[in-house]
């Protein structure tokens, strides 16, 4: 009997750690997102695993972007990859944005050395959602075209990063201004509506207060007009007397003055 108990305790002691490890592993898998193949975000805003850009250029690009990110919350990420392996540039850029950008105002400048249509500017985040797609597309195309005017590829990357940052700053300010304008307009409209409502209340109150005197006035007016209106005596029959056609001789006489001498 004692042996059976000892055996069973031993089994439990062996199974519990296995179960525990299994549960912990499951939990860890459930909580962590799918691993990004490029790992976590580097400290700089420029990711150039192939070392295409000179460190000085990397610094020239990343320093202003870091200041903008710090002061204005605009996150511009420059990614330089040797090859996209046939993946669409926008798709690749969005994956980087999703994995590494925490700001709602974000943009990825993706460059593949040697490709003539590079660099690509791919804005993302909630700011883009509130803008007109045509406006975004037009601005991106313009920015890419201006960046492409540079002759050297590092300069193209730097120009594209600057264009992206400026574009986002411009949009951000626009949205803020529009939001403030709308807020102001909303306030104005609310004030106007409140004024109108107050006037209506006042008018209703005055109307209600005026009804009684108006009613009394109208009644008095009707009464007054009726009093001043024509009056008729009943038409009574008469009989001719003394052969007179129009008057029968009834009369009243009064002395109103002494006779003239």
């Amino acid at each position, binding site marked *: 009997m004692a042996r059976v108990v000892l055996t069973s305790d031993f089994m439990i002691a062996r199974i519990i750690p296995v179960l525990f490890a299994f549960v912990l592993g499951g939990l860890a898998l459930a909580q962590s997102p799918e691993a990004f193949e490029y790992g976590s975000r580097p400290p700089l805003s420029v990711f150039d695993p192939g070392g295409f850009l000179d460190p000085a250029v990397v610094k020239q690009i990343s320093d202003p972007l870091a200041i903008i990110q710090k002061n204005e919350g605009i996150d511009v990420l420059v990614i330089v990859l040797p090859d996209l392996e046939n993946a669409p540039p926008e798709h690749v850029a969005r994956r980087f944005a999703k994995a590494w950008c925490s700001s709602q105002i974000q943009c990825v400048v993706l460059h593949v050395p040697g490709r003539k249509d590079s660099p690509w500017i791919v804005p993302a985040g909630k700011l883009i959602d509130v803008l007109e797609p045509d406006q975004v597309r037009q601005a991106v195309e313009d920015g890419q075209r201006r960046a492409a005017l540079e002759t050297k590829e590092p300069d193209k990357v730097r120009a594209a990063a600057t264009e992206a940052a400026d574009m986002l700053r411009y949009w951000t300010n626009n949205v803020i201004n529009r939001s403030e304008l709308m807020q102001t307009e909303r306030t104005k409209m609310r004030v106007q509506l409140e004024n109108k409502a107050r006037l209506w209340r006042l008018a209703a109150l005055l109307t209600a207060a005026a009804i009684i005197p108006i009613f009394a006035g109208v009644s008095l007016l009707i009464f007054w007009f009726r009093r001043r209106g*024509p009056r008729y005596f009943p038409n009574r029959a008469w009989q001719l007397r003394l052969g007179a056609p129009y008057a029968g001789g*009834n009369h009243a006489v009064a002395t109103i003055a002494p006779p003239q001498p």
Partner: protein
Amino acid sequence: MSAAPERIRRRSQRSAPVNVACPSCRTVLKADSKWCPSCNFTGGDTMAMFSDSPPPLLPILDAMGLWNESDIKKIETERDSLRRRYPQFQWRICTVSLPPDTQLPLFGFWLLNACPLHEKETFEERAWTLLLLIDAASGKAAAVPGYAAESCLADDDWQKSLFAMGSRWKSGNTADAVVEFFKSSRSHLDESWVRNGSRRANK
């Protein structure tokens, strides 16, 4: 005197509750007396008394020339106001200077009956006429109503209206005296209108 058309006499089914008297001797008459049983007066007698051709009975016939244009305007204003209130009544005012032995009521009786109807005047309008006759010589005034008008106001009330003229007339404001007559008449007509059963429309 000519006979009035039958249609006037049949205008209403109601008879006039009014006392009638002989204009000559004041004897009370029956409503359809052809002559006065006391003095045998008939309307035709006045044709002999006043043989002149009667003038048209104008609204204001100021034969004595008492009033200027302003006076007449004043009188017309008050008369028109009274006429708006009592549209049935036709008001005629006449100033005369009669010989001392002339009876003013008989002259008025003659004027009202003998004067021809003017162009637009109807028989009915003449019956609704009140003639205010003023004899400047004797200082007397008479109110002579037509058949229709006499049923609205008793002779006593007309007399009170005549008395109302007195003070103004004596002070020389003869036009104001006539205005007072109209005002007093209006007051008496108002009372009578209420007594007779008020109506706002002429039926």
